[in-house]
């Protein structure tokens, strides 16, 4: 069980050319990177391949390009690139996070130096903000730390104490402590304003906070606090038996929430209790019932039922039937939905216009590689589909997931039951993703 031994050759197929001097050369063809379901992440020019499994143990391999020729191997812990900035491109590729211990490390991707413990008083899953990452800490006072010059913490500023819940709203951080005190801190100025005590849960916008009073864990009143005036408006009652902390009925994942416009309170309790909407004064607002909702950031709710799918806005009595039979395998893309209907992918406008076909035989796991090509898993096959022609390039069978990195390639996972050689993590270079023999019917692309 020696530490940091190189085990890459055990895990990387001969195809990868273990020992190859040029790591890029090892990535110009499909590479079997791991025979188990390893995770993958990119940071700068490096690829992190990790396993974190109670039975298989933990290990990390870091290497340039697709990671086929790892330069740093660590047995015993799974490190991932630390994500601390709003734009991941700004993240330092030499700073990594150990998820199990929530510790930051400075790593040397060349493997010449061992990982070094960095800022161990910070937990390594910060909230990125425009003013620097906001870290939970291991300090006894339970304060958060805003670290503007990360990883230099000399200018770090503490926020709150015994903080147990936070929400970032633009430059404003709303936070609740273990005693139920709610406050708001302007990250631009550092000024903290107490808002209210006796709070068990909250959801905030820039002007209002929906609060659950800490009076009874089973039943408690919900109010909307007007931050400017301090006035409270009663909305309704929280019931623990139908208002779980997590709501699977809404993509908002909260049973009580402010809507994206900030003008309504939405109640999405456990089915079959009806969906409901209220204005900020607590007056009931028009909203259709349904089994579940999908919330568009623009404020449109797609209300899904077994027999119909409609678009609605809280307070608007008019609902718009959408041209899709179910919400299954649908997702927002820009200002519309993309939905799988009878195995085909459709563009579904939210204004009720007829749906239009995007591509045939597309799976629920899919990603647009560019405006013409879709990578998908359909019937277990990993495919690149040319949307306009339905030309398909098969990559493998028995794939169950993938992750695409534009400019680099696609990592994908293969599994058979029972397990067979070749299962695990693979890399497909970008040069092999796109169809090369596709008939050029439109003329605007040919590779």
């Amino acid at each position, binding site marked *: *069980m020696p*530490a*940091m031994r190189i085990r890459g050759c055990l895990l990387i197929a001969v195809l990868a050319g273990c020992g190859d001097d040029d790591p890029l050369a090892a990535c110009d063809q499909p590479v079997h990177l791991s025979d188990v379901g390893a995770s993958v992440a990119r940071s700068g020019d490096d690829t992190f391949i990790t396993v974190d499994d109670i039975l298989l143990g933990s290990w990390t391999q870091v290497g340039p390009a697709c990671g086929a020729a790892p330069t740093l191997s660590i047995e015993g*812990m799974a490190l991932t690139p630390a994500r601390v900035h709003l734009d991941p491109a700004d993240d330092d590729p030499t700073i990594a996070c150990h998820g*199990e211990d929530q510790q930051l490390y400075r790593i040397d991707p060349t493997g010449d*130096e*061992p990982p070094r*413990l*960095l800022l*161990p008083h910070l937990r390594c899953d910060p909230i990125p903000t425009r003013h620097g990452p906001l870290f939970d800490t291991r300090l006894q006072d339970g304060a958060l730390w805003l670290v503007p010059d990360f990883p230099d913490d000399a200018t770090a500023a503490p926020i709150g104490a015994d903080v147990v819940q936070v929400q970032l709203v633009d430059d404003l951080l709303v936070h609740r402590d273990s005693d139920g005190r709610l406050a708001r801190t302007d990250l631009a100025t550092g000024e903290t304003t107490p808002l209210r005590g006796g709070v068990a849960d909250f959801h905030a916008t820039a002007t209002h906070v929906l609060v659950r009073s800490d009076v009874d864990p089973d039943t408690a009143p919900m109010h909307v606090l007007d931050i400017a005036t301090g006035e409270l408006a009663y909305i309704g009652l929280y019931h623990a038996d139908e208002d779980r902390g997590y709501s699977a009925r809404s993509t908002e994942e909260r049973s009580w929430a402010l809507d994206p416009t900030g003008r309504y309170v939405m109640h999405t309790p456990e089915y079959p209790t009806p969906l409901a909407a209220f204005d900020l004064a607590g007056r009931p607002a028009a909203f259709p019932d349904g089994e579940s909702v999908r919330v568009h950031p623009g404020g449109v709710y797609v209300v899904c039922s077994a027999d119909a799918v409609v678009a609605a806005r809280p307070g608007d009595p008019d609902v718009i039937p959408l041209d899709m039979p179910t919400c299954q395998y649908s997702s927002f893309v820009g200002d519309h939905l993309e939905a799988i209907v009878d195995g085909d992918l459709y563009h579904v406008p939210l204004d009720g216009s007829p749906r239009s076909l995007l591509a045939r035989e597309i799976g629920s796991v899919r990603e647009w590689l560019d405006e013409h090509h879709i990578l998908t898993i359909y019937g277990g096959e990993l495919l690149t589909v040319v949307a306009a022609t339905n030309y398909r390039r098969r990559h493998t069978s028995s794939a169950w997931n993938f992750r695409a990195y534009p400019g680099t390639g696609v990592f994908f996972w293969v599994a058979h039951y029972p397990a067979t050689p070749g299962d695990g993590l693979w890399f497909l270079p970008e040069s092999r993703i796109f169809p090369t023999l596709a008939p050029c019917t439109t003329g605007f692309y040919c590779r």
Partner: protein
Amino acid sequence: MMRPLVCLALLVAGCDETPACTDPSAPRRMVDAATSATHLVTAWAGDHAYYVLDEPSTPASLFVGPRCGEARLVARGARLMPARIDLEPADDDPALACSEYGRFYRLDLGGEQLPALMYPDVSCRSTPTGHGLLVRHPLGGGPGLWLYPAFPDAAGATQIDEYGLVVRVRGDAAYFYDTVYSVARLDLATGERSTVADDVNEWIATETHLLWRENADGDQPARVLLTDASNGTQHALGSPTPEPTSLGVTWRFDANDEYVVHGPGDDAGIEAFDLRGEPVPLPAPGVLLDVFPGAAVLSRDADGQLFFTRLRAPAPVALDHRIDPAPTDTSPQFYRSPVADDRIEVLRGDELWAVPLDGAAASLLARDVDLHFAWIDEDHLLTLFDGVLQTISVPDGERRVHAKHVRAFTTAGELSVDGAHYLREDGVWYLPPSALVPAE
């Protein structure tokens, strides 16, 4: 086994002076740093000392330095302690540290480099034995137990078990779960291994015996059994009970591992058994508080009256002290005395009193004693009272003030034979033993 590394670390640290302090009677500043810390933890490793300075709102600081030399800041934000590899801490490598998450780090004792991760596949919460280091994976790293005769050299390491959870070493015996519900014993001297008990819910052990509670459904009563590891002989102790408390609290071995004492914590009474499972008379009333050497127990009744009862004694001895039967804080309600085995000590307000175990009247030991005090010898104790660190001579009440504006102090052992460290705003100071008590 780590001597070469110790020497190397000392060289790296620039510890070119002899370990003996130049002025053995004078306080010496070990950490020269302005600090707002209010809490101090110290530990020895090899010929170095670790100083963790802590306070609620800023990152902890770890300073490490040679016994008589100034310590340097080697880690900030981490509460690292010396990694214990050898049975004798004096043989441990001061540059090898262990984190609260069970990770090994190599410290740069010069303070230039961040702590470097070492042996990431090995938990530093490993167990030193007389035959090597019993090693497990770090938390989340999966099961498995290995014995490294010369850690970190893996060449001679052997895997003891593929499961190997919850390792407890008693003398030359190592006990561990070898499946989810069975406990095995490994004789580290002979390598002989056997499964001692199956269907185990919880357990404690001596070198020769395993005391365990069997699994039961829900709140069903469960038996507590005593198994002789040498021959597998098994005895059920008392009646099956559904009590929710754990072994080691309600069931304990006495200090000599010759008896088992059971204090269920209610009016069911305190009972004792010998190693054959036979009940031994123990007329102790009330709730078990502690088991003393010499097969005796301290208990209290519902009013807080303390009793001291020896096994096979005709009756308990009522002591001259009551405690709060329902305390609202976690402060100690009594102290075992490291300098006298015929008494306990209690704080009555700021006064430290001796309560004889024979039932005689309590007597005042010293005034102005804080919750935190340490005996230096049988006549002197060290305490921090209102920020003043002082030695109190118990026979005559004389006080020797060592320092003012002190925030915390530590001593290395039960008795302050290794001197004491104290924390002030200007750093950490060391009081050598000769400074604690003036020479006669």
